């Protein structure tokens, strides 16, 4: 381990920012340009919508995360929603997004866009209920795709679950066609699915490169660089972006370019971050520690699976995509792909612990910081037991900080920083000289 490593900014950083901004601005003009505008959860199988031609998808989660970066506006959103009778403990993303919708204020300028359809997956208690509220307010048709929760591991997918999702997807095609009067192109759907798989696999491959010591991309960089994946995983441009990014990361690893000049300790974050306090993620650098990523940024968006050697590996491109024909085949593939994701919502506690243990071991993690996020019941579920399992299996130290990914009223930055610094000191680190 060297005392200091060379560092430099990512060449594609600016492009990622531009893609993000363009995506949000395009949403405003989508309907004027004759494109269908959908609102929904990011986890929705929105690849499906490509069959209707060019469309825009305003993802609740990611728009809400952007608003949360502006705590004053976020507070206005919360107050608007609380005034409408919604509880303060509901999903932080929902409260931010819907508050902005009630205020009719779009973060990127102008009035809040009105969707043609609300399209979402139902995989946690919030997904389906939140989108119902949004659809009712917008007066938009609501289409949900229920993802069965099986609490098993993701290698033993039940055929009837695949069929259940597939039938809902086929019905969604009919419903959108009927209401919008648009035809559906199966080939576009297949291309979109292939792009989506490719971009998720590319992101996993990039994350795998971060196993290198020193890590070349810290978590804060990941928050920016994963945006194209979030906003359009089904697009050809996204595949191109991540192909370029992978090449850049490979080169950085080859040259030993680090995310931070001193890497004495590698941390993993677990949970959605407090979006309004992202600078906190630079704090460990003062102690020579680096967040090499979070379970959220790495595994939620990257397509990983346990390989035959027992290691956690990026998936390979599914063979069946080469010969795929027709929507029936495509929607069944998409359904299975969703259920097989290692971070699928319905996997058991045991499976969730197992994938985290893989990350800790294979990314050479020295400590894990958990976010008990009051703004997301899904991400925080069984978190205390996952923490305990990681400690028991790997023996590495862990801490939990409480907070809210969206609502700064439920987050104490000073207290969190204090806890983190104490944790870093307990790992034997001392503050570096400036």
């Amino acid at each position, binding site marked *: 381990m060297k005392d200091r490593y060379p560092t430099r900014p990512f060449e594609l950083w600016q492009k990622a920012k531009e893609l993000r901004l363009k995506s949000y601005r395009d949403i405003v003009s989508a309907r004027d340009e004759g494109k269908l505008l959908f609102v929904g959860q990011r986890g929705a199988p929105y690849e499906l919508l490509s069959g209707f031609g060019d469309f825009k998808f305003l993802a609740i989660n990611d728009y809400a995360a952007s608003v949360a970066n502006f705590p004053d506006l976020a507070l206005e959103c919360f107050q608007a929603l609380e005034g409408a009778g919604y*509880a303060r403990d509901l999903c932080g993303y929902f409260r931010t997004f819907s508050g902005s919708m009630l205020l009719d204020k779009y973060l990127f300028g102008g009035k809040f866009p009105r969707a043609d359809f609300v399209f979402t997956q*139902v995989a946690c208690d919030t997904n389906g209920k939140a989108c119902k509220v949004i659809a009712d307010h917008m007066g938009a048709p609501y289409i949900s795709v229920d993802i069965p929760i099986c609490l098993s591991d993701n290698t033993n997918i039940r055929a009837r679950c695949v069929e259940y999702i597939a039938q809902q997807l086929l019905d969604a095609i009919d419903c959108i066609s009927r209401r919008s009067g648009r035809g559906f192109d199966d080939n576009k759907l297949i291309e979109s699915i292939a792009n989506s798989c490719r971009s998720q696999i590319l992101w996993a491959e990039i994350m795998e490169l971060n196993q290198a010591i020193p890590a070349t991309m810290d978590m804060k960089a990941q928050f920016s660089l994963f945006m194209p994946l979030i906003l359009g995983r089904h697009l050809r441009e996204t595949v191109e972006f991540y192909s370029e990014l992978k090449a850049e990361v490979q080169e950085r690893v080859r040259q030993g370019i680090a995310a931070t000049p001193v890497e004495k300790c590698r941390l993993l974050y677990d949970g959605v971050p407090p979006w309004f306090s992202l600078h906190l993620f630079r704090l460990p650098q003062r102690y020579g520690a680096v967040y090499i990523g979070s379970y959220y940024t790495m595994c939620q968006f990257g397509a990983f699976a346990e390989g035959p050697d027992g290691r956690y590996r990026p998936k390979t491109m599914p063979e069946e995509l080469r010969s795929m024909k027709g929507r029936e085949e495509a929607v069944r593939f998409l359904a299975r792909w969703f259920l097989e994701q290692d971070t699928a919502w319905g996997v058991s506690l045991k499976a969730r612990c197992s994938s985290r243990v893989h990350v800790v071991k294979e990314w050479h993690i020295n400590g894990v910081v958990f976010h008990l996020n009051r703004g997301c019941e899904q991400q925080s579920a069984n978190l205390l037991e996952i923490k305990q399992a990681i400690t028991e299996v790997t023996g590495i130290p862990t801490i939990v900080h409480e907070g809210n990914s969206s609502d700064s009223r439920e987050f104490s930055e000073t207290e969190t920083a204090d806890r983190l610094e104490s944790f870093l000191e307990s790992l034997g680190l001392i503050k570096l000289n400036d």
Partner: protein
Amino acid sequence: MQDNLRLSHKGELHLEPDYPVFSWQCSCVEKVSAFKFGCYRNGCLSGIDAIGSEPGDSLRENNSMTDISSLNRIGTIVKERHEYASQWKARSGGKVIGCFCSYVPEEIIYAAGMLPVRMLGGHQPQDVSESHIAGMYCSFCRDVLAQGLLRNYSYLDGIVMSNSCIHLRQAFESWRSYIPISFDYFIAMPCRVAAPWAKPLLQGELQDFQAALESWTGKRISFAALARSVQLYNTNRALLHQVYELRKNNGLYLTGAEAMQLVLSSMLMDKAEHNQLLEQCLADIPKRQERIGGIRLMVLGSENDDVGLIQLIESMGGEIVIDDLCTGSRYFWNQASVDGDLIGNLAQRYLERPPCPTKDVEEHLRFQHILNLAQSYQATGAIILLQKFCHPHEFDYPALARILRDNGLPHIVLEMDITIPYGQFRTRVEAFLEMLRKDEDRI
């Protein structure tokens, strides 16, 4: 003796709930809290009992309700549910299965010769679940898990959950990870219950569940056994409907608290035995003197098995005449057909029952059902019981509140936790009832 001092049915001294100070320990309470208002364990409610009385007696006296032994037996079983299940097990040699949600198809369990019991909380302060489930999740799931960690359910042979909410799922996951149990099973109950593709999914899930039970016990569940079980459950549901019918009109024979105990006991008892008790109750209850009840109310909302809370409301002049609760009408409202494919019929039954908000995703189907109930049972107000952090109900609340308002049904919301702030609730319910009385006077 001070005015506010009362003796509970166990003979201990208590202060009345309006006095938020010290209470002596009731034997129902395992831990004494210096600031508890009384004993809140199911049905005990010693804090508001009359001197030397049985639980709820003061209420019956006020309302000219005569004591009925079958109802008393039901009340005792609800209070002493663990003893009942343990005795059933010793007596029958059968297995007892804990059901984490009212969507668990009990009929299949019962057909296997086992006793399905609904998992309920203890309504006592506890500190054992906090290291498993964070405080940001609903009190019910934490309370249920606590009962397992405290070994109050040590007689269970297995646990089963049918997918409902993330809160209870955690309790199930924690239970099977940390509490020794020989059988656990999770059913992938769909959320879009009205979708036509939900039935094949649930039917397959129930078939697998049946096979898992058979494999565990080494005994096949015959068609005849399943048919008998479904029939027995249908009879039970029909009897509970009859019980509820008694509350439809003025001249009430039965309190809301008693009706709730009848449903709760159904979730805890051997259905054959429960049917006999229900029949006895239905024969006995009309012999009671009719009485004019209080203000007719509906309760709805999150899981609530706290009979004491219902008694509290009724002790102030409210009359709970109908509910939309999973521990109430939702549990028994619809029947399963006994013709043809029984597993398919059961799937249909669970998909078509009045939905929990987690199963009411796209259309708010439950709202019309709630309005229909309110109308049929002539409710003039509604009390919404919300478990703190119960997100599915919280999401529905603003829209539901609008619907209730638009249909002339005033309501209040009471936010529940593991224990209940009786004094505060009393004040709020009193104010609500006063408002409703004024409305009635105006009419």
